[in-house]
């Protein structure tokens, strides 16, 4: 007797993930069940197709970018550790009270949440959102409903408002500045139960 899912996850692994991400023991086992149910190939790792099989994600305009965020540079598979590491960005900040480790910045800090969002735009990871990159994301979100010219002027206006050093692109610090009043902690957090 024993279950197929949780027998593959050892206690040491759970402890390590707990330290790294801040999720509780029960949250980790529940998320492992979910990971396992998405893993159709049953090889301990998720591919992009596994994510695409979720209908709500497949119809999300930014679906591909979100899926991309799970996969490290150039890789096609994400294991459970990587899965949890990415999800950890969305833990609410108040849950950190118990785990005060001053040395490491937690994955779900305001800064890291903003960095996650920044990377949705910054596809080539050069720490700048160029006009083209911004246009790409805009196009994904609006589909065919807005013309190229209109979209272009929206992109120009956005860059103009955010760009303080005149290099016609948005750096991470400029990104943070523009959004400094937005409640990032709440908007980029998911309420994980128990």
């Amino acid at each position: 007797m024993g279950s197929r899912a949780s027998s593959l996850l050892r206690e040491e692994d759970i402890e390590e993930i707990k330290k790294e991400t801040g999720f509780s023991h029960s949250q980790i086992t529940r998320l492992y069940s979910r990971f396992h149910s998405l893993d159709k190939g049953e090889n301990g790792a998720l591919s992009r197709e596994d994510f695409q099989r979720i209908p709500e994600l497949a119809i999300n305009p930014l679906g591909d970018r979100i899926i991309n965020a799970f996969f490290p540079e150039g890789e096609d598979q994400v294991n459970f550790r990587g899965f949890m590491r990415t999800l950890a960005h969305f833990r609410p900040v108040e849950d950190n009270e118990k785990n005060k480790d001053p040395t490491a910045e937690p994955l779900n800090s305001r800064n890291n949440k903003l960095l996650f969002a920044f990377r949705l735009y910054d596809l080539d990871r050069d720490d700048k959102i160029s006009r083209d990159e911004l246009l790409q994301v805009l196009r994904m979100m609006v589909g065919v409903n807005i013309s190229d010219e209109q979209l272009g002027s929206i992109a120009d206006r956005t860059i103009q408002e955010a760009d303080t050093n005149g290099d016609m692109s948005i750096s991470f610090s400029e990104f943070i500045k523009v959004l400094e009043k937005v409640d990032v902690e709440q908007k980029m957090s998911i309420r994980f139960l128990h």
Partner: protein
Amino acid sequence: MEGSYWDLVLLVMEVWLFVVLGLIVLPAMFGVSLGFTDLYIKVLVKILEVNNTLIQTSRIIERNDDSMEEQIVELRRSHPKFHSVGDFTLCDAFYFCKKGIESIVDDEVTQRFTSEELVSWNLLTRTNINFHYISVRVTIIWGLGLFIRYCILLPLRVTLAAIGLSWLVIGTTLVGLLPNSNVKNWLSDVIHMTCYRICARGLSARIRYHSKENRPKKGGICVANHTSPIDIVILANDGCYAMVGQIHGGLMGVIQRSMVRSCPHVWFERSEMKDRHAVAKRLKDHIADKSKQPILIFPEGTCINNTSVMMFKKGSFEIGGTIYPVAIKYDPQFGDAFWNSGKYNMVSYLLRMMTSWAIVCNVWYLPPMSIQDGEDAVHFANRVKSAIALQGGLMDLSWDGGLKREKVKQSFKEEQQKMYSSMIVGQD
């Protein structure tokens, strides 16, 4: 020595058959219950209650179900250049991002194609996904249960099923030889009904029918939510229906071909099913003939795990005729009736059915519905679906059951893009 050994075996088999036939098959055929199943269920409930071993459930996350517009306006509220519509802000992406991550952790659809998780363990290994060793006593009872289910109940049930199906094939073939008459129809009904009753015993099924006054009548279409092939046995225990479906090969095909000899069922060749007009015509012709039994259709088109009702295909609702909606809800405590056709083939599925404790379910006959003036088939289908979901305590979803195997339509993404665009440029 050899001789007496075989004599003994034969004797045991004779006694066995006598017990089965006398105590189970015969009463079943006459619709009489000797009360064994009810007693068995009572005992089971007692045992499971006493050994209430809770395993975790509840959702993983709490989702935000506000509309796109509400959530994006909220997002932009604290932005320095706040316009509620007619502008784009960098934080708009947060909405899609959060929605996406939420769906990765917990989505509404993929869970419908696997078995429902239970609140407390019912002593079947298969339902214990997150097993933790609980106690010696529970393990002993589990072991005992295993022995009873596999060594006593399973052979009994297989025998019953075999008897039931052979009776169906032989009986319908014989009746099929008769000339068309009222007697033939009556005999056909009897044969079908008794066979399904035997099969129901073969699953230790305890079925409760509600609102029998709304039972489907001839010339109508009976429509129900689909969880497993056993749905047919459940419904046919209380009425005679004309089945609709694709004709198969093998044993299934034999049964189908003999059934249709005694009364009209609607079987299609695989190629015919692609032609929607031909299908619709045959169904129309069937219900036009008021002497034929009501058609039984499962508009979801595939098996769902009995926690929700998914999109009803409009085909059955375009034919005309009166729709008799039926809601079927299984009690998962005694056995999981859902057929996960991707994971199990028919044989392993039936084996799992026959080694469960029992199949306990409720059937509600809902008042008949017809298409209203100015209503289109899709709207009518949704109306019927909601009625069934409400009665059965199931979640009413618009997602297509076909998502079990196919990709979702991109038109849903386009809808979202359109909605978002109107927020950026404002209404035209």
